[in-house]
């Protein structure tokens, strides 16, 4: 196994003077690997992603544990330094509609991060944005750059966001249910796109999802979360071969099987 891009140890987080959300979560994502983080809504899987990215909601705080990224401890780091370290990370968000600012053109939303992180000029950044849109197979990228988000379809918006996530060659990308808000045909294309880009760029991916079908297609290893605790952690082949924990088996039972008509859960 190669060197880990991200190592989380015993991570706990909770609402101030309220319930705990994460109980001692540990996982590691190797460089260039796709690690799935699976669980029901409210299991805390997105919260893990937000801990890693440093964008916890105001009332939630990390109460213990460690997050190591690029050789540095992120827990307890000052915000200013944290923002600098963040250059090595990116996010592919869940809802491509609300993840793009409705009042800014695509080009400015793609280039702002490049200008900040890479320190390049607006012209250079725009040229790079164009190349990235080519890479995510957007037709007529030149005109897409000039448009506003409401002028693009959901799939195109998600492609723009994926292109932006890869813009600064991050070591780690957190993908937070990137296909949930899309319809099924688009889901498949987007999933393949993420996998292809992840492979060609050699990026480590923490893939948050509730969909075990997606996990089977894209992930190397999986962590199954329930109520903020890890219930199972294994390579994909193993967990699909013989899920050990009853909760994992229940998740499998709840996954619609497209190859068995009538067997799907409604």
């Amino acid at each position, binding site marked *: 196994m190669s060197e880990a891009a991200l190592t989380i140890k015993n991570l706990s987080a909770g609402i101030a003077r309220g319930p705990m959300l994460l109980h001692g979560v540990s996982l590691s994502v190797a460089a260039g690997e796709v690690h799935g983080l699976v669980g029901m809504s409210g299991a805390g899987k997105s919260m893990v992603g937000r801990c890693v990215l440093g964008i916890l909601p105001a009332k939630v705080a990390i109460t213990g544990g460690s997050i190591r990224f690029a050789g540095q401890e992120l827990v307890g780091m000052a915000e200013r330094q944290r923002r600098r370290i963040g250059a090595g990370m990116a996010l592919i968000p869940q809802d491509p509609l609300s993840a793009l600012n409705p009042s*800014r053109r695509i080009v400015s939303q793609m280039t702002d991060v490049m200008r900040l992180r890479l320190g390049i000029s607006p012209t250079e950044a725009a040229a790079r944005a164009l190349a990235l849109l080519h890479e995510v197979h957007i037709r007529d990228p030149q005109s897409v750059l000039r448009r506003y988000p409401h002028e693009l379809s959901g799939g195109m918006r998600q492609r723009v966001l994926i292109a932006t996530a890869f813009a600064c060659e991050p070591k780690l990308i957190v993908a937070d249910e990137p296909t949930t808000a899309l319809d099924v045909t688009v889901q498949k294309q987007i999933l393949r796109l993420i996998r292809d880009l992840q492979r060609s760029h050699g990026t480590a991916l923490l893939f948050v999802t509730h969909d075990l079908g997606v996990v089977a297609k894209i992930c190397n290893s999986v962590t199954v979360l329930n109520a903020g605790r890890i219930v199972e952690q294994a390579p994909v082949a193993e967990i699909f071969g013989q899920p050990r924990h009853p909760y994992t088996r229940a998740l499998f039972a709840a996954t619609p099987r497209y190859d068995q008509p009538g067997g799907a859960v409604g």
Partner: protein
Amino acid sequence: MITRILSRLLQAIPTLAGVAVLVFVLVRVVPGDPVAMMIPPGADADVVARLYAQYGLDKPILTQFVIWAGQALHGDFGMSISLRQGVTGLIFSRLPATLELVAFAATLAVLLGGALAVFGTRYAGRAGEAVVDGLTGFILSVPDFLWGLAFIVGFGVLLPLFPISGRNDPSYSLGLASDFILTESFLRLRWGVTADILAHMTMPAVALALPLAAMIARVLKSSLAEQMAQDYALLSRVKGFSRWHVIVAEALRNAAIPTVSLTGVQVTFLVGGTVLIEKIFSYPGIGSLAIDAVVNRDLPLIQGLILTFAVLFILINLLLDFSYALLDPRLRHG
């Protein structure tokens, strides 16, 4: 766009006609007699009758209205009874003072309200937000004219920082061509005069601006909170931008849209607020003119002024409507 502006202007015509009728009837139905205000008690009945005839007040209301409306359509709103000048000229000479005061107050309100909202959002859930909430609550609970009186005592008398009355220092002549003396003195680079006018305007403008600023701060802060919870704001922080940057460069413009629609109406209250504030600060605008007109039962002047206020309200609402399209690209192609 142009057709939309034209149709809105056409819609304004029946509104103005309605206001004209309402005001015309109201000022004649409510007790109070303009002629009685002009002459000493116990005057000769002949004199009274002549004065009634002179101002056309002896005719039936309907006839009076037809005469007045006919002249009004030609831009002639009659003679002021108490000031013995043409109403139209009188209003146009005092309107610029009010417009400059309202514009200054609205600018202050937007800047102050915006700053409070941004500050409160940056420190959401912490002491900074509580301070902003407390402050806006306090400001809102005191009406503008009380702020005006408090400022006169505080910064006019106890700590005389600002002049308490008028629009400019009367000891020198302005020598300006228009009545927009703030704008004109600034454009002519006579900034000493500009500073003097601003000093005179500061207290009335701040008194007018405070309640509006607090209202803007409240609405803007809650819509900023909504925007900051959107994924694009989170994504911007992941990209590496500071909270300040995310608030000002990403969320503010989107949060401004509901804020304009919710507080836009308040700007018209600002115009209404000038009536008391101008009187308190002896500021020579149409607000103080309106109070004098009412006190003297100066019917033609009251009618002219209320129509002026109505036109201002309609124009402000029109401007607000079109500012949405400026803020929200989704509305531009609709």
